[in-house]
C-alpha cells in the first residue's frame, strides 16, 4: 500500500506552497478583487516558466511530463492561495480537452503554447443557468462556423483560445476549438471577481472539431477536470481550517481563547473531518487519473461531491469562527467564501455530480 504522494511530489508541494505564499499573497489576490487587474499576469508568467501549466502535458508536446499526480499537487496549492490566474481553465480544461480529444496536429499546434503560457485557454460550455446537459446546448456549427452565446465562461475575457461545446452538423453536442481573437466578448460581474468570467458571442466564428464528437467526449473532459478541481477545493478548505484555527487561538472572549469553547471546537472538528474525507477521495482521484483507471468517472464524481461539500463548509464556518470581522471586506475570509462558490458551480454543481455518481453506481451494478 503506497497511497500517498512520492517524496519528490511532496517536495514540489512544499516549494510551490512557499512560492505562492510569497508571490500570491492576499494583497496580490486583492488586486483582482478590487479590479486593479483582471488577473495576476506577472504571477502567471512565473508559473509558466516553472513548468506548472504543462505539468501533466507530455514532454513531446512541450510539457513538463510530471504526470497527473504532479498537477494534482499544484492544484491543491493554487486553491490554497486563491490564485487569480487562469490555471484551471488552461491546464485542467483546455489543455486536457486537446490532449484527450484532439488530433496529433492539434496537440502540436496548441499544447506547447498552452504549456509555456503564451496562450491562455478556456472551456466555453454554459449557456446561462443550468448544469451541464447535452439537451441544453444551442450553439451550433454549420460549415465549420460556430454561432451562439456562451456564458459564463471562466477566463473567457482573457483567453486566446477556447474549447467550445456546440452542436455539430449532425446536431450532436461535440467539442470544438477556436481562436477568440475576433469573437465579441463582454466581461461579466460575478460572485468571485478574483477570477475573470465573460460572455462570448460567436457569430460564424471559424472552428475546428476536436475529436470525433458526441457528449461522451465532453463528459470525459469534465470527469478528469473534476478531480483537479477537487484538489483546488481541498487546498482552499485546508486554508480556511488553518485560518479559523489560528484565529480561535488568538481571539479571547469571556476571558479565554474562543478555541477553548466546545461550540468552536466542534465546528473546527467538523471542518477537519469533511476536509480529510475530501482529501482521501481526491487522492483516489489522483491515482485514477495517473493510472487512467476504468473507474475514473466514479472516482471523479466522488471526489467532486466530497470536495465541494468540504470547501463550502470550511469557507462559511471560517467566517462564523471569525465573528463580525469575518464578514468585512478587509479580512480575507470572503476570498475563500467566493472562490468556494466559484469552484463549486463551474463544471457542474453538487447536485449534478451527485446524480452522475448514482448513475455510475447503477451502471456498475448493471454490468
Amino acid at each position, binding site marked *: *500500500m*503506497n*497511497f*500517498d*504522494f512520492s517524496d519528490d511530489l511532496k517536495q514540489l508541494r512544499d516549494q510551490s506552497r512557499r512560492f505562492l505564499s510569497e508571490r500570491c499573497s492576499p494583497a496580490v489576490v486583492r488586486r483582482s478583487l478590487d479590479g486593479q487587474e483582471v488577473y495576476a499576469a506577472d504571477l502567471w508568467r512565473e508559473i509558466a516558466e516553472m513548468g506548472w501549466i504543462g505539468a501533466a502535458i507530455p514532454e513531446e508536446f512541450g510539457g513538463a511530463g510530471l504526470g497527473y*499526480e504532479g498537477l494534482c499537487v499544484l492544484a491543491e496549492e493554487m486553491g490554497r492561495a486563491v490564485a487569480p490566474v487562469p490555471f484551471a481553465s488552461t491546464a485542467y480544461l483546455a489543455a486536457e480537452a486537446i490532449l484527450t480529444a484532439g488530433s496529433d496536429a492539434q496537440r502540436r499546434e496548441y499544447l506547447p503554447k498552452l504549456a509555456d503560457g503564451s496562450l491562455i485557454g478556456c472551456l466555453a460550455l454554459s449557456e446561462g443557468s443550468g448544469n451541464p446537459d447535452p439537451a441544453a446546448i444551442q450553439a451550433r456549427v454549420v460549415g465549420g462556423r460556430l454561432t451562439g452565446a456562451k456564458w459564463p465562461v471562466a477566463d473567457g475575457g482573457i483567453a486566446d483560445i477556447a474549447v467550445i461545446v456546440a452542436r455539430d452538423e449532425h446536431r450532436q453536442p461535440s467539442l470544438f476549438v477556436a481562436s477568440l481573437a475576433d469573437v465579441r466578448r463582454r466581461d461579466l460581474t460575478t460572485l468571485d471577481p478574483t477570477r475573470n468570467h465573460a460572455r462570448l458571442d460567436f457569430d460564424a466564428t471559424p472552428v475546428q472539431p476536436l475529436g470525433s464528437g458526441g457528449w461522451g467526449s465532453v463528459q470525459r473532459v469534465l470527469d478528469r477536470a473534476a478531480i483537479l478541481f477537487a484538489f483546488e477545493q481541498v487546498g482552499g478548505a485546508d486554508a480556511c*481550517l488553518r485560518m479559523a*484555527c489560528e484565529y*480561535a*487561538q488568538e481571539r479571547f472572549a469571556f476571558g*479565554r*481563547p474562543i*478555541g*477553548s*469553547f*466546545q461550540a*468552536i*471546537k*466542534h465546528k*473546527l*472538528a*467538523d471542518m*477537519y*473531518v469533511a476536509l*480529510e*474525507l*475530501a482529501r*482521501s*477521495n481526491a*487522492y*483516489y482521484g*489522483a*491515482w485514477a487519473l*495517473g493510472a487512467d483507471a476504468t473507474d475514473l468517472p466514479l472516482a471523479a*464524481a*466522488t471526489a467532486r*461531491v*466530497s470536495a465541494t*461539500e468540504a470547501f463550502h463548509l470550511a469557507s462559511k464556518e471560517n467566517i462564523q469562527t471569525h465573528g463580525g470581522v469575518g464578514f468585512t471586506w478587509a479580512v480575507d475570509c470572503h476570498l475563500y467564501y467566493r472562490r468556494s462558490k466559484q469552484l463549486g458551480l463551474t463544471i457542474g454543481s453538487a*447536485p449534478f*455530480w*451527485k*446524480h452522475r*455518481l*448514482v448513475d455510475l*453506481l*447503477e451502471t456498475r*451494478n448493471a454490468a
Partner: protein
Amino acid sequence: MDFNDTKEEAAFRIEARAFLAANAEPKAGAKPVLRQSGVDQQAVERCKAWQAKKADAGFAGLTWPKRFGGREASPILQVIYNQEEDAFVVPRGLYEIGLGMCIPTMMAYAQPEQLDRYVKPALRGEEVWCQLFSEPAGGSDLAALRTRAERDGDDWVINGQKIWTSGAHLSDFGIIVVRTDPNLPKHEGLTFFFLDMKSPGIDIRPIHQMSGARHFNEVFFTDVRVPDSQRLGAVGQGWKVSLTTLMNERLAVGDVQRPEVDDLLELSRKLRIDGKPAIQNGAVREKIAEWHARSQGLKFTRFRTMTALSKGETPGPENSIHKLVNASKLQDIASYGLDLMGAGGLVIDDDLAEAYAMFQSALLSSPSSRIAGGSDEILRNIIAERVLGMPSDVRVDKGKPFNQVPTGRR
C-alpha cells in the same frame, strides 16, 4: 501511488487467506452477520474454539512479542489480517477488549512473572478479560469516578460501582481504575489494578439496552479484596495508566456496521416511489451520493493510515474520525432506509422485514455506537485539541480536592 502490498505483506496476505479459507466459511452468499446482541454461551464456545485455532496458527497477537506467542510483526500485518478475516464469517465479540486493551496495558505495567502467567491464556482465548472504567458518575468525564480502594495490609479493599462493562459476566479477569485518595484533585487520586472477576463481593448485573441486547453490565463491588501485587503502576498514577488503555480503544472499536450505503442502494432499487424504483427519485439519489462519498472517504483515509503504518509511522489521534463519521452515518442511513419503507419499516418479523431487518436493528443500536468508546462530542474535542491544537476547556474542578467537586447527577 499504488495499492500493492510489499513483498512481505503479499506473502503474509496469502498465508492469512489460506488459513482462513481452510478454517472459516466465506461471507459471500451467507446471511449478513448483524451487530451481535451480546454473546450467549454457545457463542462463547465458538469464540473460544476459533481463538485457540487462530492463536495456534500464529494469527492472534501478531504485533506482540514472540515470547507471548506473537510475531513481533509490523501493525500493517494486523490490518492486512483484519482485511482478510473480514471476508469470512468468524465468531467475534469476546476478545476484542481483552486483547485490544487489557493485555496491552498489562504488558506496559505488569511484572514479568505476571505476564508469563496471564498473556498466553488470554491470547489462546482460555481466559477472558474485561475493562472496568466507566461509572455512573464517570463517563465522558472518566476521571470523576468514585469507586474507592482502601489499603488493608497487603490488600486493597474495593467498594463502589462500575457500569457499561462489556462482557463482565463472561470474564475471568478485569482491569480497573479506582480512587485511592479522594482528598487529592480528580486525576491525582487514582490507582490501577487487575483483578479476578470471580472474587467474593463482585455482583454483575446485565443492562437491558433499548435495542434489546444485554451486552453491557453494571458491576457492584462490596469489600472486594485485591492484593497490592496486582497494582499496575504506582499509587496515584492510575490516570496515566488509563490513558495507555484508552489509546488502544479507538483502534479496537469501530468496525463498519450494516446497513452500509450499498444496502441502502439495494433497498432503493427494490422499493418504489410514485410507481418507479426509489433509486430514480432525485432526493434519494442525492442522499445516496453523499453517503457514498463519506464511505469512500473513510475507506481511502484508512488506506492513508495503512500507508503510514507500512512506512513504519505511527498514526495519531486523527483516527478518531472513523468512529465519529461511521456512527452517525449508520444512524442516518438506518433512519432513511426506514423512511423509504414507510409504515412497513416498523415491522421486524423475520419473514416480513426488508433486508433481514438490518435497518430496524441499526436504528435501535446506533445510539449506543455514537456514545460507547468515546461519544461524538468527546471525539470532536479530541480532534480539536490533539489534532488542531485548540486549548483545553476551562475546568472548574482543576486543583480542587475530589471530595469537594460535585459529580454525577444532582
